[in-house]
Structure formats: structure tokens, C-alpha cells
């Protein structure tokens, strides 16, 4: 009940935020110098051609009419036609979305898989070599620009050692899975895995480091709480004390931070995609900005904004799940 009510309220707020994003994105187009027409028109187009193109694209209507049109179209999931690709912007964006999602999810999995055990071990073996190692790693991890990390990984693992491919996606997870399920061939998954490994490490390192730090600090703080002593006095196995009791409470601040850091993940994905030539939303946005493909820019930013809002609602729900004391006012 509590959860349902909460989700409803958060969804309403989320819609408001998305509307804000849409409006801001729309305005962005009008405060920026340079006309869209310059990018649509051929290199040596005549003024008449330019005029006609402007009319075709509705660029000569008053701003509020364009805004109203835009909102109405958006409600029908129509983001306009990409100027660059000549296809509906939504098609282009949703074709790219799986690649970015795969990367983001893989990076998150990498991060969670390594960071939480590492943080726990580090906190429970304080001042031992493993703790110094983990602390050092997390410090370097949050201080290393991921574009540089990606380059170094390509150089060492891809080029010098030749263990993994240096770039590209080749096959999506969906088709790879289909291949496995319907034809029983593992090659798809294998290729997919080989290609996503370096990018997801590159994207995940910052998060791994960040969560390791948070887990370690949180665990240390929680381990000092009285209730830990109580659980020990009860005779609970030590692992249960750490993972069930302490880690659970440590998760609460971690979840908060993760929600706030989602933007970083998406931003990091832009860079990672650019370094690894990964055909996701990030590279699309850079291309779109460079060619002033407004429908594409706006569409991508809105999709990202919606994603951000959705993720944060999920994060808040998780937060509430982990922290029963929270009542959302």
C-alpha cells in the first residue's frame, strides 16, 4: 500500500520533471546560434532552396506554435524526422537504445559484482593488505578518466595482447540469445560477451570504485553500531552478521548515491561508446549535436531524461524497501 501510493506520487513528479526536460530541450534549440537549415541544406544550396526547406520543416512558425506542435507530436510518440538519417528520430533512437542499455547494465553488473564483496572484505579486514589494495584501487578508480582507461585497455588488452576485440558491437544481446535458444549456438553470446567486456569494464570502473568506497566506509560505520554487537551476542554466524545485518544497512546510503549518480553513468556511456565505437545513444548524441540534428538531439535527451526519472523511481522504491524508517512526505 505504502509502496503503491509512493509510486503514484513519484510518477506524477516524474512526469513533471520530464515535462521540464522537454521544455528545456525545446528552448535549447532557440537559444543556440546557427540555424538548422544550414545543416539540412546542401553545401551550395540557393537561398530559395533554403527557404523552401525551412517551410517544410515548420521552422518559420512562431515559437509557441512550434512548441505546441512539438508537445502534441510527442504525445503521439512522434519526435520528428531525423535530419541526418532521414528516418523518424524515434526509430533511430530506439534502434540505438538496446546497445546503450546493454552497456549500462553490463557495467552496473560488473560494478556490483566486484564492488560490494570488495568493500565488505576491505572493511572487515581493515588495515590488512587486502584493505590497502581495495582502498588504493577505489581511489585510483574514481580518479581515472574513463576515456583514458578505455584507451589504455584497448592498447594493452586489445592491441598488445590481442585477447579481446578493440571495438564494435557486432551482435546485440537479443539476437545472440535467440541464436542460443532457437538454434542452440553459443557463438552469438560468445561474440557479444567478447565485445562488451572491455567497454563495460571501462564504464564500470568508476562505479566499482565508488561503490567499493561507499561500501567500505558504510560497513565500517555500521560495524560500530550497537546492534552489531547484539547480533554477535546472539551467536549468529559472522557471515550472516555481515551480509544480512550490516550490509543491508550499508545499502541504504549506497542506493541513494547510485540514484544520484545515474547521470554519471549515462555521461560515462557517451565517452565509452565514443572510445569503443559502440553504436549506442551516446555516439548518436554526439553525431546529432555535431550536425545540429535537432529532432535527434531533443529525442535523445528526452529519452535519457525519462530513463533517469524511471531509474530514480526504482531507486527510491529500493531505498524504501531497504530502509523501513523512511516515510516519504
Amino acid at each position: 500500500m505504502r509502496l503503491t501510493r509512493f509510486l503514484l506520487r513519484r510518477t506524477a513528479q516524474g512526469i513533471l520533471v520530464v515535462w521540464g526536460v522537454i521544455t528545456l530541450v525545446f528552448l535549447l534549440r532557440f537559444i543556440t546560434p546557427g540555424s538548422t537549415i544550414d545543416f539540412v541544406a546542401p553545401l551550395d544550396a540557393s537561398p530559395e532552396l533554403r527557404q523552401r526547406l525551412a517551410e517544410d520543416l515548420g521552422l518559420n512558425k512562431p515559437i509557441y506554435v512550434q512548441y505546441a506542435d512539438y508537445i502534441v507530436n510527442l504525445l503521439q510518440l512522434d519526435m520528428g524526422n531525423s535530419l541526418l538519417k532521414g528516418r523518424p528520430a524515434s526509430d533511430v533512437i530506439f534502434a540505438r537504445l538496446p546497445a546503450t542499455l546493454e552497456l549500462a547494465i553490463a557495467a552496473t553488473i560488473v560494478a556490483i559484482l566486484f564492488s560490494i564483496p570488495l568493500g565488505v572484505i576491505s572493511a572487515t579486514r581493515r588495515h590488512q593488505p587486502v584493505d590497502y589494495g581495495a582502498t588504493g584501487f577505489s581511489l585510483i578508480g574514481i580518479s581515472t578518466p574513463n576515456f583514458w582507461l578505455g584507451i589504455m585497455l584497448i592498447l594493452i588488452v586489445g592491441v598488445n595482447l590481442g585477447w579481446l576485440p578493440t571495438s564494435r558491437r557486432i551482435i546485440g544481446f537479443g539476437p545472440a540469445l535467440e541464436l542460443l535458444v532457437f538454434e542452440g549456438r553459443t557463438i552469438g553470446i560468445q561474440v557479444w560477451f567478447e565485445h562488451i567486456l572491455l567497454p563495460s569494464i571501462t564504464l564500470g570502473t568508476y562505479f566499482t570504485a565508488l561503490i567499493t568506497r561507499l561500501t567500505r566506509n558504510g560497513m565500517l560505520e555500521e560495524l560500530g553500531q550497537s546492534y552489531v554487537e547484539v547480533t554477535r551476542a546472539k551467536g549468529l554466524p559472522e557471515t550472516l552478521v555481515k551480509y544480512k545485518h550490516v550490509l543491508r544497512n550499508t545499502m541504504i546510503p549506497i542506493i541513494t548515491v547510485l540514484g544520484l549518480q545515474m547521470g554519471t553513468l549515462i555521461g560515462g556511456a557517451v565517452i565509452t561508446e565514443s572510445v569503443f565505437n559502440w553504436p549506442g545513444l551516446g555516439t548518436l548524441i554526439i553525431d546529432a549535436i555535431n550536425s545540429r540534428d535537432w529532432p535527434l538531439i531533443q529525442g535523445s535527451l528526452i529519452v535519457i531524461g525519462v530513463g533517469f526519472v524511471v531509474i530514480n523511481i526504482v531507486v527510491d522504491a529500493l531505498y524504501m524497501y531497504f530502509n523501513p524508517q523512511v516515510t516519504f512526505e
Partner: protein
Amino acid sequence: MSDDVILRVSDLSTRFFTTDGQINAVESLSLEIEEGEVFGIVGESGSGKSVTARSLIRLIESPGRITSGTIEYRDADLADDLREDHPGAVDGEFVDLLAIPEKIHRGLRGTSFSMIFQDPESSFNPSLTVGEQIAEAVEVQRRASSNPRSTRARTRSSEYSLRSYAAAAVLPSRGYVSSESKDRAIELLQQVGIPDPEQRVDEYPHEYSGGMLQRAMVAQALAGEPDVLVADEPTTALDVTIQAQVLDILRDLQEETGMTILLITHNLGVIARMCDRVGVMYAGEIVERGSLGDIFDRPTHPYTQGLLGSIPDLDAAGGRLQPIGGNVPSLLDAEMGDRCYFADRCPKAMEECLEKPAEYPAEGTDDHAAQCYLADHPYEASQALPEDYFEESEPP
């Protein structure tokens, strides 16, 4: 009397090694507790009571360490089980708890020993239901008793894989706790007088009041049906009427189950109400011990006398210790001389007090004794130290 002794502590010292120096929180402490009695330890804040309690169940964490002594616990079955693997720890029916591995010791917690902590609010994990936490304690006991003959089985930390830990971190209701344990938790809550336990069992600590939490804490401590219950200031955080209720519950349960209670408090009223025998603690040492009557009617140590003298009416529950003149001593090793630690506050301090006093038997029951020269010697005002003696010699 030794037949009845269940816990025998000798020469126990617990020290903390901090950046400011070594702190001698418990100093060469010896005592014996008999089966089925309520033994009280009373003393001012900072006298080492809580550390003593934690030392008894080996819950001292870094930078603290138990540096010497033995804690012998009488349990014939346990002794039989351990005799082979840990011969050094076993002496007849007694097992030295400090000489067995942590793993085996952990198996004793909850089932042989249990503890009630002083601040109920912070003693429960805020993100798990109260019932869940009590049921855990039941589960420890359940798993242990499912194979009562083998201590090794009962002390092994069960077949608990990493996967189920992860599951436990995410899904608290899965994994460790069985539904039988949960039912037992409801019974326990009822036993300690929580109204509406079927509903309360699924509530979180922040939904309980302080008094209810302390009762839940009692329920949790009793869940493993322990032989020895260590209660560290079980009522301090509560207001007077609720204090009385909780104490009544404890007393009733003790009479019902016959368990041994080690009650630690700074409240003489509580002692008077609950205890059979009493130890008075000062600066990490038991300075006087004896039966309730010995201590209250025939106090020997000037400190005990000071404590009692400051209470207008012993029968009034909640009567609090009035401060004795002077400061509670620092337990920093560097600042502790080799003397009677109470000497600088003692109105009868004499030159003899500048040396460490031995324990002298005192008038009263067999085990009435005090760590004071005066217990065995008459007071002679002529040997008294000048009043400002310690002020001068104290470092600025």
C-alpha cells in the same frame, strides 16, 4: 560451594590499546558465580562494568583485548566434547572460554550465554523487523539443539552458502529463519508482555516504544534459553515505572527457568531488588563482594560505604548513586600507579594505601571480602594522608 559454581573468572584483565595510551578497563578480576543465582555488579560509570560483561562473552573488539585470565564455564557435555581437541581448555567439568577457538565460542553465545544491552533503541537493527531478529536468536538455539550431543555440530556455523547470504542481504524474510522460529518469537514476545504480538512481530524497531523494545530485547536474550544471562544496565534507558516492569519480568523468568543472571548496573535500587550476591566495582577491579546483606548491611570498603551513604532510602526503586567527592579515576595505564585506586577519593586514605591492597575477608558470610587494608586493620587517623596529598602529586 564449588559444585554450584557455573562461571569462574580468575585474574581477568581487559585492556584497550588506543592512540592516547593503554587503558586498563578490567584489572585482574576474579569472581565466581553460582548456578541459578542473580549476581550483581555495581559501580559508577566508567568503572569497567560493561567491559567486564562483554569480556565474559568474549565480545571485545579491537583495539581492545583480553590480555590475561581465565573464564571457566561448567558444562559437562561441552567439556567431554572438547577434551580431545582442546585439552588445555578443559579442567574437569569446566571449560576455559578464553582458550577455545572463536568459532566454538560463537556456538555458545545465545544458547549458553546471552546478553541484554543497555540501550534498546540502538540494539536492534533498524531495517529488520523485531520478530525477525528475535527469530534469529531462536534459530540459533534450534539449530544447536537439533544435534545436542555434538558440540562440534552445534558450533559449526551451519551449511550457509554465499548465495544465501546474498539472498539474505536482499530478502530478509528468506534464508536463515524458519517459520517455527517465527512462531516461537511470537510466544516470546507474549511472554515478556508485548500486547498483540502476532502483529507486533512484523513491526520495525522504530515502531516500538523504548520500554517495549527493552522487553523485546529480553525476549531476544531468552530466545536461546541460555544458562547464563548477562544483563548490562537493562533498565537504565527506561523511565521508572517501566524499569520496574522489566525487572519483574526478568525476575519471574529467572525463577521459572532457573537460569543464572549476571546483572550489571549503577543502580543500587536495582541491585537490592534483584540480586543474591553483589560485587562492587571500581576502576576495573571488584573492590568488595559478598551477599546482598553483606554489602548493604556491613559494607567494609570505604567506596561501598560511600555509595551506600549517598542513598537516602534503599527501598525506593530508582534511588540513584550520589556522586562521591573527587573524580572517577582515569583508566589510562600511564596514570595508574601501583596503589589503591580509590585512595585519592578515600576519606580514610593512609600510607598503606599507596601500595596495592590485597583482598581481605570481611565480617559476614563466607565470601564477603574487600580489597582494602581497612577490612583487616583498624583505622588510625594518625596514619592518614594529608588531604591535599593527591592534588599535589597529580600531574597538572
